[in-house]
């Protein structure tokens, strides 16, 4: 499954720590993203997932450590951040991916449009190219933003909680799209809150202001790792019709250091 060796990696991080000028918000991070792998990034809010993405994008210089990104990075943001009343079509949004590829004084031409339409085709939205972006469903918007990253020719995709707020069919469709993208040799970092979903991916990276664990889900997502990641205690509660559900109790506040 992995491309093996040290040649095939898209990004490598060793001994990374980061801060926004104040206290250190993320430390001891070290992992490698290889082509064709889906890596789930787990952690509570404020655990450093977004910080890590910003460092990989080069927007935030690391405080310490080495960051080597060999592939073009594409961000797939949460769609609520984009303005839904903005007067653009799905095609317009996909075309934004050409911005860094053509000189600033040129407008996207025929070749770029074809490229954007191909990307929309790849995410299954060719038919809706001319629909208003804001009127698409959450899952469709997410896929348009993936198409934008494909137009950028990003081989490393950073997806910010792409599954949040999606219904089951949309979620399934997005999952299979991510499998296709991995098969094309793209690497993905997918931030998520859904531990069960992350078990289906190739690797998981658990963060809680520092790296808790990194590895294959089956070996990595142990009870103690999950508890350390979420800073709480796992309990199993009775689920409704789909069996018992694990839940994490909020952390005890005996570690109120700063």
């Amino acid at each position: 499954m992995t491309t093996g060796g040290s040649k095939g990696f898209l990004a490598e991080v060793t001994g990374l720590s980061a801060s926004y000028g104040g206290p250190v918000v993320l430390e001891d991070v070290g992992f490698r993203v290889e082509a064709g792998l889906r890596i789930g990034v787990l952690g509570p809010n404020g655990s450093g997932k977004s910080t890590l993405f910003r460092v990989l994008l080069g927007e935030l210089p690391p405080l310490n450590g080495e960051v080597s990104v060999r592939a073009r990075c594409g961000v797939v943001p949460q769609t609520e951040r984009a303005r839904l009343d903005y007067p653009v079509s799905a095609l317009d949004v996909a075309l934004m991916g050409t911005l860094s590829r053509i000189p600033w004084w040129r407008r996207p031409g025929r070749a770029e449009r074809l490229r954007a339409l191909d990307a929309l085709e790849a995410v299954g939205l060719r038919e809706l190219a001319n629909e208003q972006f804001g009127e698409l469903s959450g899952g469709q918007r997410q896929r348009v933003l993936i198409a934008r990253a494909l137009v950028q020719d990003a081989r490393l995709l950073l997806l910010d909680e792409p599954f949040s707020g999606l219904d089951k069919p949309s979620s399934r469709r997005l999952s299979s799209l991510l499998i296709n993208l991995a098969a094309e040799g793209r690497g993905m970092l997918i931030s998520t809150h859904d531990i069960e979903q992350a078990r289906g991916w190739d690797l998981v990276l658990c963060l809680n202001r520092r790296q808790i664990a990194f590895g294959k889900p089956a070996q990595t997502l142990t009870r103690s790792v999950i508890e350390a990641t979420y800073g709480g205690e796992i309990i199993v509660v009775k689920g409704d019709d789909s069996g018992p559900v694990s839940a994490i109790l909020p952390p005890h506040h005996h570690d109120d250091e700063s």
Partner: protein
Amino acid sequence: MMMSPELLLLTGGVGSRFWQVLFEPWTQGIMQHALTEVALLGLVGGALGCWIVLYELSYSAESLAHALFPGLVIAALSGLPLMLGAGLGITVAAVAIALFGQVPGIGRDTAVAVIVSTLFGLGVVLALSPASPPGLQGLLFGDILGVSDLDLILAMGLVAVTLISLRLLHPQLLTVGFDRSTARSIGGNPRRADVALLVLLALATLVAVQGLGSLLVVAVLVGPAATARLLARRLTPMMVVATLLSFLAGIGGLYLSYYAGIAAGASVAGAIVALYLIVLGGSKIRGLDRRRNPLRANPRLPETVRTLPPVDAP
């Protein structure tokens, strides 16, 4: 079928009266100038106005227009070209806002409000001084009927610069406006987009302030685009609609001014606001209609239907 000579004469009379009413205003040099000015305002209001509305810069537009007032008054008092005074006024205002906005503990909004009222007040004091020449109300409310050939030529130059810049900046502005937080990762530059837009806003204000004055200039920079936003769902159509609405309001305002004897700038601004209210009313009624008919209210429905498997699939 033959018409009676009386009827023919009557309809011919009504017809020629109609054409006379329609064309008479434009036989005069003043009105031709005004028409050209209105067309120039329409081009700027249509194209740049859309970005001002989408970037939520309406307050900045209004602030700049008010804060340049002392520049206009000083130009009028010393006999300099108004556009020069306006340019000076806008520069002082921009620098003052930039500096005052940095002072800790004062919000940006507050800084803008303080600077704008200070400068505007200063302008009024100057304007009401005994030395001030008559006709200063033209600086406040504009004087579309008083634009000179030189004013028009300068305005044409500024309009050309504005339109060419907007054309070049289009992909940048579109990307940054869509999602500021990730714009950088796909090659956008939010700061550059903001600065470019503010410079163009200042240029456009210089063009429009001649015709509409310090108080009404914001109408043409914001009104048509805000109206077009209610009508168009894509950016290019929005710009075309905004420009056409701007022309329409400009020409309508000039007719109103000519025949009803109302100040031209105020008539144009009034027509812009009237168009906005009409379209807003129309879109509210259409919105109610959509709510009653959920099929029309759900634009996603066709796709859902399209992606359903065939009914008789295994």
